[in-house]
């Protein structure tokens, strides 16, 4: 459908969102990502029965951790949509981008720049 969406979205493919490990989500933030979202099949419509429900739990777990360490739990989100919902995909991309813009960059990044320390 070629609906335009913000270019800051980069997609990493997995066979099922159930494959998304909370460690993968955290690693992205550790490396400086400003936001991550997981896009799975509609609930109740997972090709692998419950993979997307598990993914939602992983996202919630990551949200909780990110919130408690001051990075911001809202930076990671879960969305569900079917393969026929191109416009919704673009809408989500916009929505997520706006949400993250409002939150500002990953605070780790800011802190790094300020302190100039090395890993």
């Amino acid at each position, binding site marked *: 459908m070629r609906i335009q969406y913000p270019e800051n979205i980069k997609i990493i493919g997995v066979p099922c969102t159930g494959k998304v490990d909370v460690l993968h989500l955290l690693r992205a933030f*550790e490396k400086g990502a400003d936001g991550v979202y997981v896009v799975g099949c509609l609930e109740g419509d997972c090709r692998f029965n419950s993979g997307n429900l598990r993914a939602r739990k992983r996202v919630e777990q990551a949200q909780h951790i990110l919130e408690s360490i001051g990075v911001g739990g809202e930076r990671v989100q879960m969305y569900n949509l079917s393969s026929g919902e191109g416009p919704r995909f673009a809408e989500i991309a916009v929505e997520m981008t706006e949400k993250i813009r409002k939150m500002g960059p990953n605070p780790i990044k800011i802190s790094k720049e300020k302190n100039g*320390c090395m*890993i």
Partner: protein
Amino acid sequence: MIVAKQKPIEEIIEGVRDYEKILIAGCNECVTVCEAGGKKEVGILASALRMYFMNQGKNMKIDEVTLERQCDHEYLEELRKIIDRYDVVISLACGAGVQFMAEKYFRTRVLPGVDTCFMGVTEERGVWSERCQGCGKCILGETAGICPISRCAKRILNGPCGGSTKGKCEIDKELDCAWQLIIDRLNELGRLDDYEKIIPIKDWSTERAGGPRRVVREDLRL
């Protein structure tokens, strides 16, 4: 299995705030099975701590290791070569593992990363419940296989108390009354008459009251 749960990340952060080199040590036994301190949890905690301290502008070295068991010398020995590189170890093992590590590496501070809860079972994924308090003298044979010591809020040996309501314990409507379970099972086994046998005053000396316990099997020692 020993069931533990993760400590709040805030508490762990407070504990290691003043150090620079941290080793997070998981255990591949009980705490892996109850998803509190296996390799994956080690990874999650390490990642969270790294992010937290980066955000604080603090340069920390945070490494990860997961031992097969922390309650055995030989496995703990694997840390010998590297332990001096760290200011502090966060052990995600149960209390036994944390202590054994602390005993072994006297000069290194060892902090617990989980709260050790009880010996219990997996009711379903994500739900564990207590079954045993290790009293040292098992009476399950007399109580239809249900332990009033670990499962009754008052450890009443001749129950139920007056708080048993509709099969649930007075302290928590979700909690089964152990004595109801015992009675149901006795009934099922056709042994309800056994209920009237008074369980005598218990000898608690084999429990923690008798001081730290040891099991020594001379036949196994050389």
